[in-house]
């Protein structure tokens, strides 16, 4: 029988990957992990391909048990990670013995935690991705007792008694501050907002509970930016990260599940690194926007990617030394 990872406490857990990239022309949203950076790092720490299926745990406690020895990595929002009651580090590979219980509890300062397993597990695919999409009606929320089929096992690595962490790979951990700062660049329609565009900055916004993977709704006590022009905008493609101002009293920030077309002017666009940070925003928290130039935004994104590339090299070296079998597609 194939080895499995059995869910004990499900919380809100889904099988996730980086999304259905390349299909926006067919009207398909990208979807995928809302904190792409943390998801990439989790897989890289396991020697996996960045696009391998992993678990996205949202807000609530989670527990699972593998039927064979495995190597896992847990990234994303700060949380308490234990293996059979022993605290283990996030953002490092962690060895788990067959039958031990992995628990992720007390997710804080963010919303989403990513759990990857060396070799990953079997998943259903739709249009090139296993990412759930509520609009497409694809991708179940996991329930207690669900068993994911592991693609490979990993021999136990750390000392059976002392449990001294074996790895110190220095993964690039983004900040998880009490008040999140979300970087944006000017949107293509910024001019339509005149001087009121500046209202996006300097005032805190509160994340509405009506926020999800399609978009976040943000409220503020201060006046919102308003268009100084009028007239209908023809439906056109809008990027992930588009900051829109519909007629009501909320800002709308589109995230990876957004429909590919919309008819509102785009005031600003959240940067690539800002989108990962925004993917951690909790309903009820306040955040602020920070203006970046395109050059600053691109530089930040490239630095984050280079850090992941460097981490991948360190993982390869460490795994090679320890004779850990690197997954074939990794």
């Amino acid at each position, binding site marked *: 029988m194939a080895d499995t990872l059995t869910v004990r406490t499900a919380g809100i857990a889904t099988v996730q990957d980086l999304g259905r*990239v*390349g*299909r*926006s*022309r*067919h*009207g*398909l*949203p*990208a979807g995928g992990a809302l904190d792409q950076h943390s998801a990439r790092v989790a897989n890289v720490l396991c020697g996996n391909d960045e696009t391998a299926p992993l678990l996205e745990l949202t807000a609530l406690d989670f527990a699972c048990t593998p039927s064979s020895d495995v190597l896992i990595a847990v990234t994303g929002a700060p949380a308490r990670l234990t293996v059979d009651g022993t605290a283990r580090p996030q953002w490092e590979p962690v060895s788990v013995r067959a039958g031990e219980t992995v628990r992720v509890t007390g997710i804080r300062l963010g919303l989403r935690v990513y759990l990857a397993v060396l070799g990953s597990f079997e998943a259903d695919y*739709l*249009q090139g991705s296993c990412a759930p*999409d509520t*609009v*497409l*009606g*694809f991708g179940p929320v996991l329930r207690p007792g669900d068993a994911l089929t592991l693609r490979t096992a990993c021999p136990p690595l750390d000392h059976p008694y002392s449990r001294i962490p074996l790895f110190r790979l220095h993964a690039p951990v983004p900040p998880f501050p009490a008040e999140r700062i979300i970087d944006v*660049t*000017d*949107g*293509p329609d910024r001019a339509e907002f005149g001087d009121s565009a500046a209202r996006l900055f300097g005032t805190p916004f509160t994340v509405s509970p009506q926020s999800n993977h399609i978009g976040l709704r943000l409220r503020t006590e201060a006046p919102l930016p308003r268009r100084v022009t009028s007239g209908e905008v*023809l*439906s*056109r*493609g*809008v*990027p*992930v*990260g*588009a900051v829109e101002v519909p007629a009501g009293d909320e800002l709308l920030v589109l995230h990876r599940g957004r*429909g*590919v*077309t*919309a008819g509102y002017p*785009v005031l600003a*666009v*959240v*940067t*690539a690194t800002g989108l990962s940070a925004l993917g951690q925003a909790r309903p009820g928290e306040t955040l602020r926007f920070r203006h970046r130039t*395109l050059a600053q*935004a*691109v530089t930040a*994104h*490239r630095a984050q*990617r280079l850090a992941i590339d460097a981490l991948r090299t360190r993982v390869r070296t460490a795994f090679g030394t320890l004779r850990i079998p690197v997954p074939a597609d990794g």
Partner: protein
Amino acid sequence: MNGNLTVTDCGDSALVARAVGLDTERAWRLVHALADALDAVRLHGVHGLVPTYDALLVEFDCADTDHDTVRRVLWHEAARIGADPEPAAPPRRFVVPVVYGGAYGPDLPEVAAGLGLTQDEVVALHTGSDLTVRCLGAPAGAPMMDGPPFPAPVPRLASPRTRVDPGSVAVAGRQAVICPMPSPGGWPLLGRTPVRVLDLHGDPLTPYRPGDTFRFVPLAPERWDDHAGTPLAACRG
């Protein structure tokens, strides 16, 4: 250079190319030809193309390419295409049976009243000509069509529905659409087709593409089952 195009930054991972100074038909043809051209070039780092009416969104990973490179390719391809591109592929025609009114199209009476027409006249206009698919839209793969020649634009519903059944045939403004899957929607519903508009596991996702045409034909409610679940397919010839 192509004097009929503007290219604007759209955040750190996208550009928007917009056709300017062209009539709607030529603007639409230009942005779709441009999308086809970029698709054929397979530029490293570019992963998304969303051509709509007069605009093309180009999405890319700015770690793998940059705005200047994508912009240069856009201008190069636009110059090659010129101002009056031919359609990339001959249009195909899809015939779609629709049960109008009643529970299938609950907004037919209101739309008719708003247009000052009878319900039969609305159906006659909706079924009276081939409607051209202009782009694929939300929620996924929805064929966004030029609307039928109604005497006036059709207003959206004051209160959008939380769930629209798949196959629902709707109109709003000067546009028409078939809702391919259950989703919320604010467009008035005229009817519903029993055919399966798209296959989520299909590759490509939709059997139709922009430029193809749809012809709606009235279907008696008792013949719903004859077509239920049949995949939508283009007519021969």
